[in-house]
């Protein structure tokens, strides 16, 4: 058994997400865990990682201890290569300059569709959520990594509302909807790492986090999971990863 008391759920989420990024990539990151994970990756292994924020920032190096409270704050521009209009940075996604979109999620379904707009009927919602922001644009136009908490009510068979499209109804339905590029690539939770089947586009477990069983994951998921033929066990966060992460967010804004 791994000692999972060394880190919090938010910490392993950030660290495993950071591991998904590669040096030299152009990554469009949301605030919170994505920003934190992208910054962590930049400090640890990927000095040439280019981070874009939807406020209008290309190639930022956010300062440890000075994390921005949103992607539209001046802190996002620290040592950036370029600052431009917010519609213009989103158009870079549409043109195809971005390798990875990296977001958090409130509710996700088996095809990787995300809901951040409505719980219940949109016409008379039980809860009106904040909405898409750039989420719809990012997930429509590039390959996605989503980092989110693993709860049964968040992992549902069908989201109440598709705010940010994954593979829509699976199969080729995404391309047929007018979205030929991009799609859901990875979902990272504190329990496991998920990919999507090439054909059916259903979510499948690629790797279990240290100390987590298949049953743990299935019990916390609102639909039947597919498990990859060879399930990997993820390496636990190293001391170096944890220390670096905590130095980036010493006030524990997001961890």
């Amino acid at each position, binding site marked *: 058994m791994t000692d999972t008391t060394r880190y919090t759920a938010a910490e392993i989420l950030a660290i495993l997400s950071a591991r998904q990024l590669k040096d030299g990539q152009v990554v469009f990151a949301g605030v919170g865990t994505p920003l934190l994970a992208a910054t962590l990756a930049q400090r640890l292994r990927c000095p040439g990682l280019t981070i874009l924020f939807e406020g209008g920032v290309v190639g930022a190096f956010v300062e440890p201890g000075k994390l921005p409270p949103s992607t*539209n704050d001046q802190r996002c521009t620290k040592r950036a290569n370029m*600052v431009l209009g917010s519609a213009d940075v989103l158009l870079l996604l549409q043109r195809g300059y971005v390798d990875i979109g990296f977001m958090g999620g409130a509710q996700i379904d088996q095809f990787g569709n995300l809901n951040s707009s409505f719980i219940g009927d949109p016409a008379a919602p039980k809860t009106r959520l904040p909405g898409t*922001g750039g989420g719809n644009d990012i997930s429509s136009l590039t390959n996605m990594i989503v980092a989110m908490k693993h709860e049964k009510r968040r992992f549902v068979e069908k989201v109440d509302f598709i705010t940010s499209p994954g593979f829509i109804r699976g199969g080729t339905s995404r391309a047929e909807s007018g979205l030929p590029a991009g799609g859901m690539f990875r979902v990272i939770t504190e329990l496991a790492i998920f990919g999507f089947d090439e054909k059916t586009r259903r979510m499948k477990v690629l790797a279990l986090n240290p100390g987590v069983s298949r049953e743990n994951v299935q019990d916390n998921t609102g639909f039947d999971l597919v498990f990859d033929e060879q399930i990997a066990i993820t390496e636990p966060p190293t001391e170096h990863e944890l220390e670096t992460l905590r130095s980036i967010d010493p006030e524990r804004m997001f961890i």
Partner: protein
Amino acid sequence: MLNAQVEPYQRLRENLSQRDRSLREKVMTLEEAASFVQDGMKVGIGGSTMSRTPMAMIWELVRQRRKNLSCSRAITSTDGDILFGSGVSDHIITSWFAQGILWGLSKVMRRHVEQGLARYEEWSHMAVGMRFRAGGMGVPFLPIRSMLGSDVMDQRPEAKQIDCPFTGEKLLLVPALNPDVALIHVQRCDAYGNAQIDGLQFMDIDLALAANRVILTTERIVSNDQIRRAPDQTKIPFFCVDAVVEVPYGSAPHECFGIYEPMLNHMEAYVAKVNSDPVEGMREYLERYFYEPKSWNEYLALIGMEEVLDASQKGRSIYND
């Protein structure tokens, strides 16, 4: 089926031809500038989230008890709460609406929308931008490749999905948005309204071009000579602008790039207050910070010297390298 929301070109041109676009001084007070905003108008709001929000102008509109404004903004923060909570607006067009990602859901927004008191019309962030851009270009729509296949699109019959006449691909045409008035806060401009914006510009240039009137609030008014010495730094040309109001800290408690960061203690106290009781909390907040102060400077004094100075120190630090 034609769409009544998009201004026909002749009306757009007619409205613009009636504006005085000559090179003239247009410095005035918040009170005077507010006269450009009438009940029921479409109002575009500059900045995004907690940045370069034209808060002083919103503050003035609340004090003058405007009603039924239809507001539009890239991303909406506590400014949206205030607009709904004060009764100034009952319709906000935006892509994201809460107080800030640090604080979860806005109880004020939820109450108004879930109880049907006001509408939150959701578009993707890029779609909002392209709607302003179409408006600023004088065309009725622009094509985009997002929103397709999502329920965000299904909720927006105002947009039209087409098959591209060049490639056969599916595209979404988003309709131009030409606000009656835009409220924009900038770091500096001259008395004619030639504005410079430092750092993040968000959608303010498109918004200024799209609107039929523009009220600029500014941290300071500089000479026209200074503007003319670096004309490639002008982001909004004077002939788009109808009013110039000098209001230091005009975005407080939000941020103004390079001058002050958000005043987070005030923001946190605000959020705690209104989210614990979106009716009474909001009433008390508006009373204390919006209706009671005699002036904008008195409002700043209520936020407090220490917080304003701390935010200023952090704001300037972006240039400390």
